[in-house]
């Protein structure tokens, strides 16, 4: 697997390695691009990194986000209602080069497929992204995308679920780069809380197939749940809670609210 020595996966691995050297889990923060507006969004990304995020997932909104609960759906819709195109969002992403952490695009396969995988890979790489996450692209359908991602040195993070068979987990481990994303529960983002024992078991099962870092997301929302996950996973991913911090309340206060939450989460991932 390590013959794929490419810029994206290498940068992500380095971020996880740094966290490990500090004896903590890496903290991955999801924020929707240009939500609630371009300036606030940029300031929130900066605040998240300043407060200790190791990796940023930048959400590129899709009109019909099947894996997302009400919070991220509303953030997506807000950006779409403002009329911001995918090109504008990628331009926004390109403008985050000063952030000293790897950034990945999180979007749905429809966005990548409609642009054409080749063009989407080019645009992501040109925007300085280290990788891409497409939660509705399962491993067996991923071949054509992976060819383009590899060509541009982009990592592709795949999701694994507690109901995935070992055969599926092997396939997911095989095609993933950057890390393997273990879903913390059966469900969509931002609704229920993580299923602890089931997720810990899943992380163990994934590890049987790969040396890649395993990060857990969906259902992690505060310091306590971040700390709990950090005990058994290499990374902790938080999205909806951060979007709520960014979006609930006046935009001027959003960066400070995000900073406060991410600081808490960072303390959580370090207290394992």
């Amino acid at each position, binding site marked *: 697997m390590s013959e794929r020595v490419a810029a994206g996966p290498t940068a992500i691995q380095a971020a996880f390695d740094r966290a490990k050297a500090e004896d903590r889990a890496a903290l991955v923060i999801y924020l929707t691009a240009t939500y609630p507006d371009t300036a606030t969004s940029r300031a929130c990304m900066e605040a998240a990194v300043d407060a200790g995020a190791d990796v940023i997932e930048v959400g590129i909104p*899709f*009109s*019909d*986000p*099947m*894996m997302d*609960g009400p919070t991220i*759906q509303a953030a997506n*819709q807000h950006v*779409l209602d403002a009329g911001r*195109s*995918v090109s504008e969002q990628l331009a926004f992403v390109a403008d985050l080069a000063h952030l000293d952490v790897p950034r990945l695009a999180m979007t*749905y*396969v*429809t*966005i*990548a*497929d*409609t*642009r054409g995988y080749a063009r989407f890979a080019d645009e992501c790489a040109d925007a300085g992204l280290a990788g891409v996450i497409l*939660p*509705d*692209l*399962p491993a*067996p*359908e991923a071949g054509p995308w992976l060819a383009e991602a590899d060509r541009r040195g982009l990592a592709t993070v*795949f*999701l*694994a*679920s507690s*109901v*995935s*068979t070992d055969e*599926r987990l092997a396939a*997911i481990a095989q095609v993933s780069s950057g890390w393997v994303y273990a*879903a913390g529960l*059966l*469900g*969509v983002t931002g*609704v*229920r809380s993580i299923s602890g024992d089931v997720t810990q078991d899943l992380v163990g099962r994934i590890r049987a197939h790969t040396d890649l870092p395993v990060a857990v997301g969906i259902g992690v929302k505060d310091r306590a749940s971040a700390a709990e996950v950090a005990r058994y996973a290499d990374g902790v991913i938080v999205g909806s809670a951060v979007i709520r911090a960014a979006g609930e309340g006046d935009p001027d206060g959003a960066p400070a609210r995000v900073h406060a939450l991410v600081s808490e989460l960072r303390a959580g991932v370090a207290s394992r």
Partner: protein
Amino acid sequence: MSRLTDPTAPSEEALREGYFGDFGGSFVPEALSGALAQLADAWRAAQKDGAFAEQLDRLRRDYGGRPTPLYRAERLSEAAGVEVWLKREDLAHTGSHKLNNVVGQALLTQRMGKPRVIAETGAGQHGVATATAAALFGLDCTVYMGAEDVRRQRLNVVRMQLLGAEVVPVDSGTRTLKDAINEAMRDWVSNVDETHYLIGSAMGPHPFPSIVRELQSIISVESTQQFDFQAGGLPDAVVACVGGGSNAIGSFAEWIEVEGVKLIGVEAAGEGVGSGRSAATISEGREAVLHGSRSIVLVDDDGQVLPAHSVSAGLDYPGVGPEHAFLARSGRATYVAATDQEAIEGFRRTCELEGIIPALEPAHAVGWVLAHGRAELGEGARVVLTMSGRGDKDVDEVLEVAGFDVGVAKAFGEGEA
């Protein structure tokens, strides 16, 4: 012969592949991979199991009222200038073709040992059929329905509730069928262990398009035999309305291999193709992924799904099942469109000329035949048209939208000095 009774037919290959040419596949969150594999296995096992075919046959016949008649609609034929044979799915139990699919999937649900079904519904006909089967099989049932559709198909909401289903109005997005499907998918991801998502059309991730096609193909299994027996020879065309595409694919299935029979799918053009307020997916859409498969979809240049519009809640959907995309691209089937106005004309003429109140969905097929049948198919052409459902659910909406005076006010003593 149906593949259901002939397991050596090529459908298994198609099932394993999950693709119709470039279209289809399975673009879903990993959490659903197990459920889809389980479903494909259950379906394969059922197809090899004579007991399943027998149960299905018995349910369709004794409970569902099959076979449905093929009826030569003389007065409508005269008005259209072509000979119209109606395949009367409106006479099946629950009032539409939707039960064909539902009883089959309910049997599969039972075989998989799942106690709960969920469904999306637009016109409410699939929701009613699912609620019906849930009552019959003792399953828990939740139906997602766009809030706009809850409003315009009220009768069916009440029917579902009477049958014991929970109806969840969906307020997100366009508040119609597309959003109901999103919500059903989210429920399924969250409750996949005990829940079967009983998809209502020949769409969604593999293996749904193949399963639904096979279950709906009973329409053309019957119509091929009926036409041969009652009319003799071959029809010139088979015409059906297309929402997600289940009644159309079922109506086409047995004719696809028959040379010389045109297959015509009628989509909903709303206020007109190109008006920006249409649901004519194949006419206006482009290749994209929606709801788990790659097909033709109404999307903008970014891949954002565009709002569809149709007077008919059952056709008000920006996607279409992948096999229709394939049939359109291969040229074996042709997809045309009827506007709201043409559909309402079809609705009215079917009422007045045949004594049949049609659902607004097949009223699009009638409307197209009335407006274009003679020109496109030739004077006297013989047409099998699937009357996919009855229109009780649509009566209020038609009066409101069409505004035509059928004397309601007079009958109720309103508006008189």
